[in-house]
């Protein structure tokens, strides 16, 4: 039964604690759009997306009204475009990016993800051409996101791809240097990429997924923090319990919205992603949750332990609340998108090394980190390799989204605006890893016994 306390709690979460549905993402398979003629393939891609997702934005708005909860983004994820590019070896993959952009404009969605390639064991037809076209594709489009999977626990790390991605990240930043290097903010390098992720920039629609489905990504760091402030003297296991209960409530909202969207669009419901996704807005920060637990500032000693507990408690609470949980599910730590992380990075307390340790226990990886403009492609590759190794060994998804701040150095800032926020240039080590990166080859898959 409804009671006044519960009603007011829900309204307070939405009004004062920034609770929202971060995204409704429609996953669309483009496998039936493959064609040897690239222009024909692009037309099919455009038509399929517009047919399936034409009503997505409108339905999103209807649900917002019905339940009184903001739905911040309406997005689309598609089959990795490299699979389509493989059929037309002489075509320029950038054409696909432009077709996706046209579809995004027509549907009125915020982003389309899936300008992607999966090369964790090696390059197949279309993969390398697509990867090499990423800098141009992200330069000439605004709402297209790209991702490349370069490693997995089952197959090891493709070091040739790691080397190439270092160059691609740098070129992408260079091509968009006049726009605060925004291109690199739309490009993620994964290890163990998931096929049903609704969050950008890493969303793509895996080949094991159905033709079309709806995923939901919830948010709510502000709600978790507000819940913790009411118990300043609780022990850690009591805190874990509070987080679980809060995550349950947040996820129920996602489940409700996802089920309703699926009903209205006549498309099967995929998954709810349980991630706590921060925004630069006041009161919507994951770092502030960690600080509420008792850290003077995020990034200091103890941060990894707090984050591990938070991440696990969010999953435990969320799993019970939804019929199908998937995606990345955990806590995101994108530096530029989190007010508390920005402060900690400016202060020098939060460093790249600490972030790397945090990624071993949280849901994704080195996310939205601004590095000096003179960083070499090999150093970017080495950072990618380090992060992929954490994912490969620990059987988890890790990712790297670095933004080389072309023409800027430590102490300066990049301003992306909106949900992407702003990031201070963070220091990196100045010794080279070029010889290691230039060796090429593959790091073999790890063994699954004798774990220590």
């Amino acid at each position, binding site marked *: 039964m*409804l009671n*006044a306390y519960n*009603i*007011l709690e*829900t309204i307070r979460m939405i009004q004062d604690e920034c609770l929202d549905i971060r995204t409704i993402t429609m996953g669309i398979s483009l496998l039936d759009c493959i064609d040897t003629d690239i222009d024909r393939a692009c037309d099919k891609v455009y038509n399929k997306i517009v047919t399936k997702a034409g009503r997505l934005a409108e339905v999103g708005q209807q649900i917002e*009204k*019905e339940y*009184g909860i903001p739905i911040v983004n309406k997005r689309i994820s598609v089959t990795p475009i490299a699979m389509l590019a493989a059929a037309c070896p002489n075509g320029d993959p950038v054409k696909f990016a432009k077709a996706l952009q046209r579809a995004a404009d027509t549907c009125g969605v915020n982003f389309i993800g899936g300008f992607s390639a999966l090369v964790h064991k090696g390059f197949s037809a279309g993969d390398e051409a697509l990867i090499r076209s990423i800098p141009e594709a992200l330069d000439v489009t605004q709402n297209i996101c790209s991702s490349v999977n370069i490693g997995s626990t089952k197959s090891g790390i493709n070091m040739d791809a790691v080397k190439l991605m270092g160059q691609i990240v740098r070129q992408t930043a260079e091509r968009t240097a006049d726009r605060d290097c925004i291109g690199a903010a739309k490009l993620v390098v994964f290890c163990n990429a998931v096929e049903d992720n609704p969050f950008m920039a890493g969303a793509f629609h895996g080949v094991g997924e159905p033709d079309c489905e709806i995923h939901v990504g919830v948010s709510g760091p502000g709600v978790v923090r507000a819940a913790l402030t009411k118990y300043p003297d609780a022990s850690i296991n009591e805190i874990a319990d509070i987080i679980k209960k809060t995550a349950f409530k947040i996820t129920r909202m996602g489940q409700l919205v996802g089920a309703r969207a699926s009903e209205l669009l006549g498309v099967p419901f995929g998954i709810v992603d349980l991630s706590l996704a921060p925004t630069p807005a006041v009161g919507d920060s994951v770092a502030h949750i960690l600080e509420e637990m008792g850290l003077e500032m995020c990034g200091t000693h103890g941060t990894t332990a707090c984050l591990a507990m938070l991440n696990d408690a969010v999953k435990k609470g969320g799993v019970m609340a939804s019929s199908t949980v998937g995606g990345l599910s955990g806590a995101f730590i994108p530096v530029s998108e989190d007010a508390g992380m920005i402060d900690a990075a400016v202060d020098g307390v939060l460093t790249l090394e600490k972030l790397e340790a945090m990624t071993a226990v949280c849901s994704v990886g080195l996310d939205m980190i601004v590095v000096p403009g003179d960083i070499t492609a090999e150093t970017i590759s080495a950072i990618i390799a380090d992060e992929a190794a954490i994912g490969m060994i620990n059987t988890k998804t890790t990712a790297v989204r670095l933004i080389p701040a072309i023409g800027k150095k430590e102490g300066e800032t990049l301003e992306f605006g909106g949900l992407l926020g702003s990031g201070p240039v963070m220091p990196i080590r100045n010794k080279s890893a070029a010889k290691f990166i230039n060796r090429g080859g593959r790091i073999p898959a790890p063994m699954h016994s004798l774990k220590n």
Partner: protein
Amino acid sequence: MRAVVTVIGKDTVGILHKVSGICAEYNVNVIEVTQSVLQDMFAMIMLVDISDINADFSKLVDSMDSLGQKLGLSIHTMHEDIFNSMHSV
């Protein structure tokens, strides 16, 4: 199908009358009202039946929103499912 209308803000004459007036206009039946005034602050939670609503539910939401703006009150009109799903297992 039911919805919850919550009204919070400074007390004035006729709030309940105006809110229930909009309900009547949309053929929405009021099932339950909880209301209190504490130190000039008006707080009301109204449970309404929207099964026989004569327009889109979003139109009702819009009407309530504009009434809220006119009276300087915070009025939320939300489908009851959101509360049920969030607070019960």
